[in-house]
């Protein structure tokens, strides 16, 4: 365990500094709150409404697909950096990789995951006939 003493000291200083600044500002700082100061920080813009709004369940799918294709790109960068060393074999490998992902892409596309608007769903038009409250429930994923 030799050589780790410095890191231990650094961690102790870091933790100590964090805790002591919170405690010291409680005791030393002047306290005269106003409603503006109490409001949640929103980059200077006055906050509008509640942060806990309902989101469409479709964002979940979008996020999941984004993750997959984002990782695809993350793999492409190191390959691009080593393109010349890897040669044709590397190109073949990355092509196979992209083709496999392409199958997944075709699948989500054909299954309608990329149709984000509610209008793309045939059930939506039924909901529209039933009235605006049903549309709203449908749009935010609470209706059936």
């Amino acid at each position, binding site marked *: 365990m030799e050589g780790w003493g410095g890191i231990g000291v650094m961690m102790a200083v870091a933790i100590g500094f964090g805790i002591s600044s919170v405690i010291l500002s409680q005791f030393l700082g002047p306290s005269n709150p106003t409603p503006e100061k109490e409001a949640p920080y929103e980059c200077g813009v006055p906050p509008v409404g509640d942060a806990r709004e309902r989101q469409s369940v479709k964002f979940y799918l979008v996020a999941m697909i984004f993750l997959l294709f984002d990782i695809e790109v993350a793999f492409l960068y190191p390959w691009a950096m080593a393109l010349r060393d890897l040669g044709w074999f590397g190109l073949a490998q990355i092509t196979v990789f992209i083709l*496999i992902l392409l199958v997944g892409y075709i*699948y989500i596309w054909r299954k309608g995951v990329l149709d984000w608007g509610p209008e793309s769903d045939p059930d939506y038009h039924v909901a529209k006939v039933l009235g605006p409250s049903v549309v709203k429930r449908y749009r935010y994923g609470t209706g059936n």
Partner: protein
Amino acid sequence: MGTSAFDAVIPVICVTLAGLVVLLAESFRKKQERMPLGGLALIGLIGAVIACVLLWDRNATSFGMVTADNYALFVNLIILTVGILTVVFSQHTVERDGLPAGEYYALLLFAIVGMMLMVQATDLLLVFLALETMSIAVYVLTGIRFNDARGTEAAFKYFLLGAFASAFLLYGIAFLFGVTGTTSLDGIGTVVAAQSMSGNPMILAAIALLIVGFGFKVGVVPFHQWSPDAYEGAPALVTGFMSTGVKAAAMAAFARIFLSSLEPMITDWAPVLWGVAAITMILGTVVGVAQTNLKRMLAYSSIAHAGYLLVGIVAGNEVGKAAILFYLAAYALTNVAGFAIIGLLGTKAAPNDDLRDYAGLWHTHPALAGLMTIVLLSLGGFPPTAGFIAKWYIFSAAVGSGYYWLAIIGFLSSVVSVFFYLRIVVMMFMTERDARPVPLPVAASAMAGLAVTVAAILYLGILPSRVIDLAAASISTVF
């Protein structure tokens, strides 16, 4: 035939291609259009079987991380057989229960890809990657009836605990890398054999974490909590698939790591696994006796079977290693058939998986009752079935290494387990049927598949020497 860098992965490529084709076919399938997706899956699986047979004795390796030694090929053939049987049994039920066919078969194939790679991997990172490929597909398969509350709950539990177990395994791999400076199994084996590692806390921590990680996947006590819930909530055919395929793949990788790379440490880990095996056999059996749901009963039975398999690893001798392979083959065939019968008799609306539902099955489905009897006898370890030879082989390995107590515990718990298997048999044959509705008719293809499976169980039970020789030969080139 010439050799190339890809030889060892050809079976995996076959199954992957089949999975991709199924996914593409599903993408272009119109609503209500029927497509032979199960047939596509079968083509890929049979192609992989042929590739495995052709690769036999050739010891091909690819990329320095994948091997196609006979040990891997033997287990892969078991996994592929499980896959083929699951597809054959599913053909009818997928349509009947309205499961999403394309997704079902594609996930099945991708899970098999993960299992096969896990068995063939000679690098811990690839073991982990394959384990995740397998597990994620199986989590989704568990909840494939996504509008069924029990299935979703089972999938969620399985996912959370499985992810937790993966973290343990990865942490163990990290510790092993920290000690030995490599993730390759051969490299680890060389370092561990060259230096006296006994008492090194880092490697002991690594071994403990690996045992926890694999213990979860194999489903041994005390890491078994997820399995009764997951097995009960999943559709019965999926349960049959995951209780055999996942277990075979995880057990094979477990044995490969512990009996080759970590074998010099056997005096350190054998006592731990001794205890785990003993409580797994006892608890799996004793708790199984108290169950009235057939799927839960078989879930506890499969926990107990994981305990018997561990006995083979603890014994660690030549007989033990071959016995693990033979046991996996016998167990896989038997359990797939058992869960298939439950799955064929029940739907989502009427699961028919309670013990009472089997009362008088002999009168409504005489053939199924007969086949189920042989399956249950094999699970209980009666001669002349595969289960008997497998257990006898495992216990003789334990005795050969001087683990008399482990063999005695195993023998006693299999005697007790006979009670709950025979209870089902008594229910089927000697109890009158009450006013419950008669279970469904069963498809001819599924019946044919079951008959072949049960014939194989009897073959392994009566004439086991060929498969035993094969198992012994396939480990001799590896360990």
